[in-house]
């Protein structure tokens, strides 16, 4: 594992996270926040940024230490690395964005257990050097951010008739989607949309339907 593979071009690394390996809609990893905090765009945006930062920092630090850790204990070490960055992020958000933090605080702490971060460290950081890890982390983090914002916008617009807390529509078209259960419906529908686009573009769906589980 010590020799580095040639990293793919930067654009591939960035776009991969956004579309073909979108953490939420394609890989179906780290779904808890996607369902839970996306009742408003603001919440989704904040958690998305938190995950983006933690992903980039964890990927890079994972890549830095991969030579000095025994591969057998890499999972605990990676988990602790993530926990350190998450703790830092948690304190920063609690200090500067207290109002949003009140709503999504628990999920910020739970970033530690998000499978997407550790799976990127395992799949990418173990094999590549620091700079490609930065781009890969950025791509994945952005994909996650876009997913959260997309779901948040959908739910806030349909459920509360507003975007970013500003009323856009004079009525509330579909109150159901901001209800707890609405999160599941929203993510299911957006996943189906991703599949539909894929089929239109002539791709074949992965076996067992879209969003093959990782």
């Amino acid at each position: 594992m010590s020799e580095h593979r040639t990293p793919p071009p930067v654009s591939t690394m960035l776009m991969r996270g956004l579309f073909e390996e979108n953490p939420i809609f394609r890989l179906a990893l780290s779904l808890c926040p996607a369902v839970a905090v996306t009742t408003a765009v603001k919440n989704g945006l904040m958690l998305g940024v938190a995950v983006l930062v933690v992903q980039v920092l964890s990927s890079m630090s994972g890549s830095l230490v991969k030579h000095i850790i025994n591969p057998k204990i890499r999972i605990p070490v990676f988990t602790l690395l993530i926990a350190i960055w998450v703790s830092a992020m948690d304190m920063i958000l609690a200090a500067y964005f207290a109002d949003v933090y009140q709503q999504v605080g628990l999920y910020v702490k739970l970033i530690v257990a998000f499978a997407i971060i550790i799976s990127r460290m395992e799949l990418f950081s173990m094999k590549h050097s620091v700079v490609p890890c930065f781009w890969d982390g950025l791509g994945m983090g952005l994909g996650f951010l876009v997913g959260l914002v997309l779901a948040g916008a959908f739910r806030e617009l349909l459920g509360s008739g507003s975007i970013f807390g500003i009323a856009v529509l004079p009525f509330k078209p579909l109150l159901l989607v901001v209800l707890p259960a609405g999160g599941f419906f929203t993510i299911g529908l957006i996943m189906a949309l991703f599949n539909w686009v894929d089929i239109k573009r002539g791709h074949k769906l992965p076996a067992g339907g879209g969003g093959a589980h990782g």
Partner: protein
Amino acid sequence: MADAKVVSPHEILVEGALPADATAIRLVRSSDADIPLAVVSVKPAAQPNSFTLTTAETLNKQDHYQLTAKGVDQPWEIAPSPLAMVISVIIGSALINNFVFTRYLGLCVFFGVSKNKDTAIGMGVTFTIVGLLSGMISWTLNTFALEPLRLEFMQIIAFIGIVACLVQATDLILKKVNPVLHKKFGIYLVLITTNCIILAVPLLNATSGATFLQALGLSLGAGLGFALALFLMSCAIEKVNMAPVPLVFKGLPVAFIIAGLFALSFLGFSGLKVA
């Protein structure tokens, strides 16, 4: 020590000598001891040497109250029985606030292993046991080490460390002691580390300042609720797999829709009150 307990939403049964004057009695909630709850009347009860207090405000059997009276030195502590409290926390976290369907935690594992009943049961059992253990250990560490030393900022790191070690240890012990069981449940153990519920339980306990029994109830309830959710989901998925689902909805999208329907039906539990 004289005994007192809440018998109905407006009545407290008190054992011991009470002044007959309602104004000489002071009843407060232990959580905010500055706000007295008005006592309307004091009447002798059917049992000897006991009284029934009637209050204007609605009382809750799960709350803690303190009762003091002029001329009586010892206060009465009114608290729910420990067993009742544990059961109410378990039911609360398993049904009313089910971790999967109303708090949306543990979804990755939830959608991953709910493909058939056997894996769902295996994961449910393994998770309940490991979750209970890690909840207890985390509570102990938090109460006796992190809080006295003002190391609360280490909570995330400490709790995830406990989970990782516990999973690794259970894996090793099980492999040595009972290889058959390990073969059956070993793969689920590894998955537990990425289940947010296992981390959310200690964090929720730490934020709410739960007592040992409450922490026990929450850990057990979370595990049972997760197992229940997994089992229900796997039953539904097994049926759906035989149904003609539109191509774009095949796999996860339809699983999400089903989970949404389950979540809707779990809303029905929100009216459930445990006495």
